[in-house]
């Protein structure tokens, strides 16, 4: 953990004003994320995972505390195009083919046509979708769509990748496969990744740091630095180290959970 500080939240709070009164989506969150970290956020529904990611990406304004990204405010970081954001559903535009979808951010950021094409080819290879450039999203399976959406986030050189339950809708086998690919990609690019998930094994398998959150009000209840090595075969999930981390996460979760 000698790498530089990427994201730093200090006593961060966010309260939504709703008709039924205020909702404390985040309260007093303190968290440091370093360059190259793979941070998973896990916690029951409504604990503020999405909200926290959105605050990082300047899609939501905190109501208390402070947060810096790359040493500046989230807004400045967004204007500097620091973020690649992957939403739960692939969120590809149906009227653009896969290539067009990946070009979208590139067009907006004013890359030249030839540069756009180069990058599309490169990232499609990266996510194993070479040859699908001219297909439309609905012609692809859910897993492939999700990979295309990751490719879109990779196409420009955002150095922070934020992923909000990107694999939530996929079945376990496809998910395993994408998890492996994601780790590979992360190893290749050394991006900083923030990753929301509901699945304990997924969180443990992927992350260098697991943030366990709990709702009402949304807060961080545990931050677990994973002792697992960087290179991780799927089989690592049957090792005692893995199970131990998983157990700790599960306990953290159970503690903060309520049923209604």
């Amino acid at each position, binding site marked *: 953990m000698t790498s530089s500080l990427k994201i730093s939240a200090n006593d961060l709070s966010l309260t939504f004003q709703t008709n039924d009164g205020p909702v404390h989506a985040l309260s007093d969150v303190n968290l440091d994320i370093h360059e190259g970290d793979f941070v998973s956020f896990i916690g029951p529904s409504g604990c503020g995972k999405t909200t926290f990611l*959105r605050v990082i*990406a*300047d*899609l939501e304004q905190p109501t208390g505390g402070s947060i810096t990204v790359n040493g500046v405010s989230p807004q400045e970081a*967004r*204007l500097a*195009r620091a*973020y*690649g*954001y992957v*939403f*739960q*559903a692939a*969120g590809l*535009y*149906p*009227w*653009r*083919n896969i290539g067009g979808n990946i070009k*979208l*951010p590139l*067009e*907006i*950021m004013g890359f030249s046509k030839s540069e756009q094409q180069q990058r599309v080819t490169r990232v499609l290879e990266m996510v194993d979708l070479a040859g699908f450039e001219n297909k*439309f*999203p*609905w012609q692809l399976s859910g897993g492939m769509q999700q990979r295309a959406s990751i490719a879109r986030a990779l196409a*420009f050189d955002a150095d922070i990748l934020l992923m909000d339950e990107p694999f939530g809708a996929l079945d376990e086998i496809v998910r395993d496969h994408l998890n492996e690919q994601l780790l590979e990609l992360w190893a290749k690019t050394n991006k900083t990744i923030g990753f929301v998930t509901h699945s304990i094994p997924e969180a443990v398998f992927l992350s260098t740091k697991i943030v366990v959150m709990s709702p009402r009000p949304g807060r961080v209840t545990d931050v677990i630095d994973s002792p697992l090595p960087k290179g991780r075969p799927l089989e690592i999930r049957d090792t005692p180290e893995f199970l131990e981390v998983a157990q700790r996460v599960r306990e953290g979760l159970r503690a903060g959970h309520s049923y209604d």
Partner: protein
Amino acid sequence: MRSVFPVLTVLAVIVGLWWAAVAPMNIRPALDIAERSGVAVVPEGSVTRRDVSVWRLMLDNRESIAIGYQLDRPRLPTPSQVGEEFWKTTGEMVAKGRAFSKRSLLYHSWITLRSTFWGFLLGTTFGILGAVAIVYSRVTDMSLMPWAIVSQTIPIVALAPMIIVLSNQVGIDGRGVPKAIISAYLCYFPVLVSMVKGLRSPTASELDLLKTYNASGGQSFWKLRLPASVPYLFAALKVGVAAALVGTIVGELPTGAISGLGARILIGDQFGTPLAIWSALFAAAILAGILVTLIDLIQRAVLPRMGFRT
């Protein structure tokens, strides 16, 4: 495709019912004619017959029923009478090389089509611009939307004569413009409603995605909202073009239009030639069918090319 047979069957049944209905509908004038030509009719006298049901009349005067199928001014013409009249005012005109004579329905359809086109263009333009204003400005949304609904409850026919006079006042003569305005008035609303829906159809996360790219307002309009609204646009255009046609014809009724399908209906009424009304109605139906089909074809060509599944 698999509904071709059912549709044809239903159509055949409709034509059959229509044909059968001619007898009771026309029995009274038929008996009047029979009586005048000296045939014995039960009961005698057109006024006494008014209190007798048509079924009774048909039973008692079976041999006169046939007359009802050949009336010049039928209350209900037979399908073949309408077809004949329709052919006389279209196909036969074309055959005589007078397709665009004033007696040809093609000419009148063309007049109506022209107003419909301008009304449609005007209406969709206003509808789309209005929708953009409503989607992008909250004040416009709050102040305009309720009135858009109210506007559709105003009987446009009532305004038609005044629209003519007012456009005269500002120096526009001719009936074309007022007709197009009325047509646009009926056309804009479905377009507006549908486009508001369409422009608002992008999900919050689709919009957020662009925000993370720091996209400008224009970029998010051209790259997201507009393409996302295209399927809604086509749905709106189909309703809109039908509404524009209704508008033109309604506009031709009370504005004393002298040409166009609406005028034909009106004149047919004034001169007591029901066949003219019926054939104009058929021309209007065919026109509506063509217009809607045309947009449907464009939609079928455009949407898949844009990646939408239809």
